[in-house]
């Protein structure tokens, strides 16, 4: 062990309370593993929002359909990065694809990820954009023309029949995509939920809680992006769209909150062997991140705000402000949820007799700054994607749609 490691461990040892197994002193899964479920959750949630338009025919949400798809893609492309950076031997990570252990939930990562990326997201985006790519390429010159032609895979058919097929394909892919999005994030929940050694994780509800918190986080992220980007483009925010998205966010929050509450009550009522150490964990180590950030600020407050919006007939401007505020709080809450699951689950020893602590580095590959960079990276990817594949509907299309919604 290096002198720095010894110094760090000595610092950690001083903060241990009770008795921990000696190898439990250090946290094994760091902030990087907090980011991974957070990012994949956003992917799954954004996709579910997009699918509302195509499968459930929620016309109001159409303005954010393509933005949601691109958001899902941007975050999915970055999601494996924190995992990769966390590995002791990142150069061997391809082994997961080549020699997967069939009994390992984690080994299925490669397949779920590739399925979702290749079969669901890329394919749906291609069909959704194909006609536009061809039309854009026709009016462009130089590099962009070639990029768009290449992205359309050099197809040129914009006949009604071809476009009708595109639409059908999008719908079919979305129908496959919804269970796939469930699989993508449910499986992340399963990675934690199936660890019987860890009572904080081991719960059959874990995949479902993950899934609904994913939907909550994805919808609120798209709301945030839509509310930030639209004024920047000099456009007006479509209130019908925003109201509808927020309604879905509201329903998802209710389900998510109920599930987490059920999990809480269930643990408390069963009061198994681990209940004492888990109470110590919550009361001593997670009071800020769980009680204050996740529950009060990240869930109860936005929930109350959204109830107020629905009960009182508030002015548009105030509604926008409150939606924005709730969406930010919800992001904060969901990030705390991921933190509490991943980090919280490692702060008690499997001796069930003691707590350790997590000291995040500032610099270094698993430090705070790297984590922030990983969080910003998908937004940069999204900016590039939006430049290449403009997700905005044309004014005529928007007018036709709003007429349809009203009619």
């Amino acid at each position, binding site marked *: *062990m*290096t002198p720095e*490691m*010894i110094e760090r*461990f000595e610092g950690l*040892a001083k903060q241990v309370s*009770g*008795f*921990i*197994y*000696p*190898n*439990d*002193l*250090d946290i*094994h*899964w760091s902030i990087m593993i907090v980011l991974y479920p957070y990012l994949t959750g956003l992917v799954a949630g954004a996709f579910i929002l997009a699918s509302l338009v195509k499968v459930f025919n929620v016309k109001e949400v159409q303005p954010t359909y393509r933005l949601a798809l691109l958001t899902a893609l941007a975050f999915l492309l970055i999601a494996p990065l924190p*995992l990769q950076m*966390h*590995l*002791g*031997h*990142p150069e*061997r*990570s391809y*082994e*997961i694809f080549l*020699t*997967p*252990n069939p*009994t*390992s*939930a*984690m*080994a299925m*990562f490669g397949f779920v990820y590739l399925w979702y990326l290749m079969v669901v997201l890329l394919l749906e985006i291609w069909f959704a954009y194909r006609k536009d790519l061809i039309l854009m390429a026709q009016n462009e010159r130089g590099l962009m023309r070639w990029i768009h032609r290449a992205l359309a895979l050099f197809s040129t058919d914009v006949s009604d029949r071809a476009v009708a097929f595109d639409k059908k394909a999008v719908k079919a892919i979305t129908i496959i995509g919804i269970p796939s999005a469930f699989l993508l994030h449910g499986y992340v929940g399963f*990675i934690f939920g*199936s*660890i*019987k*050694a*860890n009572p904080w994780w081991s719960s059959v509800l874990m995949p479902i809680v993950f899934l609904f918190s994913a939907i909550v986080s994805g919808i609120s992220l798209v709301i945030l992006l839509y509310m930030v980007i639209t004024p920047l483009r000099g456009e007006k925010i479509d209130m019908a769209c925003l109201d509808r998205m927020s309604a879905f966010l509201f329903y998802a929050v209710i389900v998510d909150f109920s599930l987490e509450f059920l999990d809480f009550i269930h643990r408390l009522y069963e009061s198994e062997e681990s209940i004492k150490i888990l109470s110590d964990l919550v009361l001593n180590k997670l009071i800020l991140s769980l009680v204050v950030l996740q529950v009060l600020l990240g869930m109860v407050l936005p929930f109350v705000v959204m109830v107020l919006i629905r009960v009182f007939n508030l002015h548009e401007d105030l509604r926008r402000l409150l939606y924005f505020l709730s969406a930010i709080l919800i992001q904060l809450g969901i990030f705390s949820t991921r933190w509490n699951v991943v980090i919280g689950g*490692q702060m008690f*020893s*499997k*001796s*069930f*007799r003691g707590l350790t602590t997590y000291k995040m580095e500032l610099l270094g590959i698993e430090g705070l700054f790297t984590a922030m960079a990983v969080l910003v990276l998908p937004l940069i990817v999204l900016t590039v994607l939006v430049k290449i594949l403009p997700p905005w509907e044309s004014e005529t299309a928007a007018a036709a749609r709003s007429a349809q919604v009203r009619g």
Partner: protein
Amino acid sequence: MNRRHFLRQLLTPLVGAISGWIFGIRPAQGSTPEGEPPRSYGMGIDIEKCIGCGSCMTACIAENNVPQPFYYRTWVERYAVKHDGEVVVQLISKDGQPVRDELNERSVLRSFYVPKLCNHCEHPPCVQVCPVGATFQSPEGVVLVDDQRCIGCRYCIQACPYGARYLHPATMTADKCTFCYHRLAKDLLPACVEVCPTQARVFGDLESTASPLTRLIRMNKIHVLKDHLNTEPKVFYANLDGEVR
């Protein structure tokens, strides 16, 4: 019953008993009389014999180059039951003293030591979760890590209910007790068993009726750790207190 039948009935158990006696007194070594590899290794620990001297830890660290001072392939816990019933658990250092000594010894009613190590489970959760199959069971049931294959994801560390694993800071791969597999291959005992001054640790083949391990299991009330998790540990504790997890 004729004479032939009578003699057969009489001699068969006798021959069996004599051959059992001959093969029964074999040294506590890995291989069976035929020199074939044994089928299932395990360890037995008699709590009443452990004096908490820490020799096993010293031997393990020296034998296996365990990164020091914070990681352990095997360690010893001291359970101190106070007069008021409260139980205080302490980690014992290599020299046999509690690492954190903040206990008023006069308040202690009774105490005992519990050596811990990888349980080499029959159903090891670590092997189940390893995404690349880098951790596996040897034909003798010893759970091992291939450090040339391990990607350092630490899922196995999370999955182990006994805290037996750690990430080796030099190799950046999962590391743990191997029952001194390199010594077993030479018909030697694991280092911790070899040095134990009170023979609190015994080792052997669970398939062999002759091994000291089997004898320990037969002659004592036996517990395994966290048996409700159905991992089927192959480290067996004699005279274990219910406080121990």
